[in-house]
């Protein structure tokens, strides 16, 4: 017996899922998003500026640390350990409900309402024509989609020399955020030595962010309160904003608490099987078209299980990532509190051949709106002397997160195994290793970044490698192919040898640039949904 929930079912409510949904809903189609929809146990609230809370708020422990987290040793460098209490639901229950095993790949998976978008650092960069080409994505359509997504979510960016790496041809963006004194000093140094940096392929500019600097659609601009990752401020774009808007439409429904396990194509419709995460009761919905937007782990598991492709190995992509705390001597003992946000302040791009193809990128943050105890977990000093020394050092600490582009290699694979004892009855496994050549190339590039930081007056203290997977940028398990093939995507997003199943997330990307994937994920999801709309009409 049929159990139609909607004509179009989208699995996953992250950035890709919600943008695909918005495009379909705006075209008047009947759409449902289905996912586990884990909500925050400590909902983000607007509670005031960082400094004011630090000095006056008697209940601030919950805001910064959360009563459940610290005692269970959240102080660490593994993916997810830096999530603030208001964002910890981003990976809550994922380990238990969708088990994953690997000794060399440590991704963060999410079952949250909003998906990994809940943990997004808000950085927005377009992929260049060359990068789109390598990823197997149609250039002209993606350019249009970038513009549309920018108009939808609101992006603030500078019209500076990094524009070709950040916004590309997008127009109508808001003014960039006012950067903090540390970053102003870095930019001043860069301007003085611009020629040297450019000759070596480095370009520094203000960060382009999904953070409003002007009001948009009743969303207030950032208040520069440094609470971007703690409060429920809508200045920062999150998928929840789109879901809230779509829930006012009669042709949209959001169904949470359901973990989709697999699907089955039957005649001209798709049956989607799920398990209720509260009751463990299984069931199914039917739809005309199914769009998978559950990220690398979710989408790959669902496809492999649906095809009974146990032990079939899929490729994947993930940006190699390290972070480097640096010391800006000039800022020691300074306490300028003007213009502070907790987001990335500057982007430093490394494009050695200046073709905008093999670009690595560092995001620069000031260490301010985090607590000292997180640093204390990393320094070899006793708590008494360490407190005084770190209190003095913190105003001068800049954190640089370096991302490198990723290409396919036979040493990065994921697969599923049957696991009847686990909640979703499968175990997702992965292996990843780097060849000596890849290791060398990554290390060389990191060295060049460290040199550039020094030249900016920002001295690296330590290079921290949180493990492969910590970049939270994943893609590539079902890459685009022009031919109809099993476990490959066609350029319109349709899964090979399927009639009505589409891949709307990064699994279809054939290359992963270092610039941050979220804007491209949203643009691609919109592009695929738009083609479905055209098909329908």
């Amino acid at each position, binding site marked *: 017996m049929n159990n139609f929930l909607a004509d179009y079912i989208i699995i996953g409510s992250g950035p890709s899922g919600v943008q695909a949904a918005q495009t379909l809903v705006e075209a008047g189609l009947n759409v449902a998003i289905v996912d586990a929809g884990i909500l925050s146990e400590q909902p983000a609230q607007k509670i005031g500026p960082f*400094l004011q809370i*630090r*000095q*006056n*708020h*008697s209940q*601030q*422990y919950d805001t*910064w*640390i959360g*009563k459940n987290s*610290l*005692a*269970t*040793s959240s*102080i*660490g460098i593994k993916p997810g350990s830096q999530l603030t209490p208001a964002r910890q639901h981003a990976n809550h229950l994922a380990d238990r409900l969708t088990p994953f095993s690997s000794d060399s790949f440590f991704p963060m998976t999410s079952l949250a309402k909003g998906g990994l978008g809940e943990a997004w650092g808000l950085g927005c960069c377009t992929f260049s024509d060359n990068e789109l080409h390598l990823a197997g994505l149609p250039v002209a359509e993606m350019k249009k989609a970038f513009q549309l997504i920018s108009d939808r979510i609101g992006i603030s960016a500078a019209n500076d020399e990094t524009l070709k790496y950040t916004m590309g041809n997008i127009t109508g963006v808001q003014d960039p955020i006012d950067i903090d004194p540390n970053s102003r000093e870095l930019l001043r140094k860069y301007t003085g030595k611009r020629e040297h940096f450019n000759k070596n392929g480095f370009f520094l500019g203000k960060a382009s962010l999904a953070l409003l600097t002007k009001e948009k659609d009743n969303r207030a601009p950032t208040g520069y309160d440094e609470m971007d990752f703690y409060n429920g401020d809508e200045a920062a774009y999150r998928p929840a904003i789109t879901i809230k808007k779509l829930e006012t439409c009669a042709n949209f429904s959001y169904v949470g608490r359901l973990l989709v396990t697999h699907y089955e194509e039957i005649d001209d419709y798709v049956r989607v099987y799920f398990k209720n995460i509260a009751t463990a009761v299984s069931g199914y919905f039917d739809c005309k078209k199914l769009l998978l937007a559950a990220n690398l782990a979710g989408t790959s598991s669902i496809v492999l299980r649906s095809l009974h492709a146990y032990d079939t190995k899929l490729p994947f992509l993930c940006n190699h990532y390290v972070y480097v705390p640096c010391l800006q001597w000039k800022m*020691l*003992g*300074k*306490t300028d509190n003007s213009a502070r946000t907790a987001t990335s302040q500057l982007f430093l791009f490394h494009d050695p051949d200046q073709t905008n193809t093999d670009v690595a990128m560092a995001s620069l943050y000031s260490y*301010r709106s985090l*607590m*000292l*105890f997180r640093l*204390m*977990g*990393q*320094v*070899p*000093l*006793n*708590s*008494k*002397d*360490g*407190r*005084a*020394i770190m*209190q*003095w050092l*913190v*105003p001068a600490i800049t954190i640089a997160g370096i991302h490198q582009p990723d290409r396919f290699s036979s040493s990065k694979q994921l697969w599923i195994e049957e696991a009847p004892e686990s909640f979703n009855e499968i175990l997702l496994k992965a292996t990843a290793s780097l060849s000596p050549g890849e290791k060398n190339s990554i290390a060389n590039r990191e060295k060049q970044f460290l040199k550039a930081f020094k030249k900016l007056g920002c001295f690296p203290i330590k290079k921290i490698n949180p493990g492969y997977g910590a970049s939270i940028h994943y893609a590539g398990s079902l890459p685009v192919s022009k031919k109809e093939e099993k476990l490959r995507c066609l350029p319109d997003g349709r899964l090979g040898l399927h009639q009505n199943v589409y891949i709307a997330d990064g699994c279809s990307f054939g290359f992963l640039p270092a610039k941050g994937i979220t804007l491209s994920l949203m643009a691609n999801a919109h592009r695929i949904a738009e083609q479905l709309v055209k098909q329908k009409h």
Partner: protein
Amino acid sequence: MTINKEQKVLTRYITGRHPVLPVTELLHQLSLPPLPAKEQRAWNMGIRFPWLLSCIDGAYAWRKPRSAYRQRMLVYFSVMESIPEYSDLFLPQERSSFYWLLMGLRASWAGLKALLGCFLLLFI
């Protein structure tokens, strides 16, 4: 709710000040990580002889930063850091350009204490 000896000693150790009631209230709600036998003996010794705390803590911070001892100390640290009365001890303060001399000396002294702590831990 009373402030026990451990709370008094550790508040004095981390902040150099007397404990305030919110410290006790917060610690009462938190579960501290349990310690293995040797780390528990080291912990008890630090509470009994507070002048040894920075040596033992420094030794763990240097040699075993992921130990339960250190995790427990960080729970205390985070509690102190989130008490408004102590916020001036954790938030950045304006300092003179020669302050680095003092901090350099302090870091060297902390290193010596950690060395001494490592030696002590051999006998605990």
